[in-house]
């Protein structure tokens, strides 16, 4: 028999603030991402060869041809569907199964628990033992897929230095570079990556190179939450910038040519 304390929590601090911010932040970004996905426009700045990461790679027949760096092996999409639906499952999958985001939405959206030592509202709880949540164990495959997409983004960011007028550097280039930098840091700091690179070993001493990598990744991993947010927000900002330039609302700030 436990001590009979009727309060759901006796915490006196603003424990609800963090889940509230999380849910607001994720909600806002989801709405923005949905709008941009279904907009199906302003993802390519042909003058400077800027391609938003949200539409990369653009693989279906309806893509602006120049934006399809890897060809258009896929047919035109029916109805309201747009090219990003081919990449979104992987990107979203990587983030949804990410150990940080799991913590964030289990707490903020599902309130399981809303905060430490605050009772959750659910009658039963089975954690990640049953479908669909057992699929969280597939995180590493999304990590592999996201790593491939990251390579595509890096390719995009590099090729963007050569636009219609040849080599040049604009603010867009810098934004694209920072964006892939943050995405790379987020991806590399992933717990699955940490495990695969070295964490799974029993004897570090027998694998000095992997131990070295594990140490570096562990350092990054400690900042996984910060990187998760920074990269997510920056992807949206990158996309927004490209959308604004592509739609002609603003011009790209050019530094070289």
């Amino acid at each position, binding site marked *: *028999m*436990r*001590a*009979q*304390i009727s*309060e759901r*929590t*006796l*915490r*006196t*601090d603003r424990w609800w603030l963090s889940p509230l911010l999380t849910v607001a932040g994720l909600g806002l970004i989801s709405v923005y991402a949905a709008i941009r996905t279904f907009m199906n426009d302003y993802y390519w700045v042909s003058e400077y060869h800027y391609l938003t990461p949200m539409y990369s790679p653009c693989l279906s027949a309806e893509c602006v041809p120049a934006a399809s760096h890897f060809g258009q092996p896929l047919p035109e999409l029916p109805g309201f569907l747009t090219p990003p639906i081919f990449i979104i499952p992987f990107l979203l999958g990587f983030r949804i199964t990410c*150990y940080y985001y*799991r*913590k964030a939405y*289990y*707490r903020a959206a599902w309130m*399981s*628990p809303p905060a*430490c*030592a*605050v*009772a*959750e509202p*659910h009658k*039963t*709880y*089975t*954690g*990640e*033992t049953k479908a669909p*949540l*057992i699929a969280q*164990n*597939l*995180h*590493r495959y999304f990590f592999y897929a996201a790593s491939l997409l990251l390579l595509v983004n890096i390719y995009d960011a590099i090729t963007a230095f050569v636009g219609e007028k040849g080599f040049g550097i604009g603010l867009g280039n810098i934004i694209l570079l920072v964006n892939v930098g943050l995405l790379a840091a987020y991806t590399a700091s992933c*717990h*699955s990556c*940490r*495990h*695969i690179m070295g*964490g*799974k070993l*029993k*004897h*570090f*001493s027998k694998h000095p190179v992997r*131990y070295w990598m594990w140490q570096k990744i562990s350092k990054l*991993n*400690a900042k996984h939450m910060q990187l998760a947010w920074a990269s997510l927000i920056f992807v949206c900002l990158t996309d927004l910038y490209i959308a604004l330039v592509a739609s002609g609302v603003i011009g790209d700030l050019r530094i070289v040519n």
Partner: protein
Amino acid sequence: MGYQGNFRVWRGDEDGGGLEDFTVEVNEGEVVLDVIHRLQATQAGDLAVRWNCKAGKCGSCSAEINGRPRLLCMTRMSTFTEGETITITPMRTFPIIRDLVTDVSFNYTKAREIPSFKPPKDLAPGEYRMQQIDVERSQEFRKCIECFLCQDTCHVIRDHEENKEAFAGPRFLMRVAELEMHPLDEGGRTVAAQETHGLGLCNITKCCSEVCPEHIKITDNALIPMKERVADRKYDPVVWLGNKIFRRQS
């Protein structure tokens, strides 16, 4: 220097109880446990509280202060304002014995369910050779003082008594990880972590890491690496397919 502080302390036993108000003297440099002791010596001689080393090394004086699981001896009074009312309650997850003392036998039961260290049979005492970098991961987990605050805060059992049977709790899942990462252990503990000790119930919401007075990164360094090891063994499609085809025991 000193001031009169307001405290609400849960008093009672399994038949019931509630929060009682006290006004107690607080002096410079004191921790909450000092105040509880003063309360015991001056106003409530039979107030039950469990404590021992009073230096954050034994993990006896676990309780909840303003709703947060903490060690009474490591919570300095200077972290509160003078006017603040400080509420002290027993750990919620375990059965109450009296006042601030709970029955933590759940943890000892779970400790027994984890197969012990299994060294190589042919290694005599004195022949153990291990590299520092190989023992460091397990050493972090062995800093654990068994205050059971992580067990107390973990919603899997805090909010769901029925999960106690199937779930070892962060402390003992960490013990599994400690042995799994021990350079000389041959126990092979991955599958059992998931199937016997309830690793799958953990949804890595990290409250265990938040409350740990030893600042052990329980989630990042023990639980998630264990989940990844389980994924290696149980959720890797190649391995899974191989097992299906060759009907191997995973």
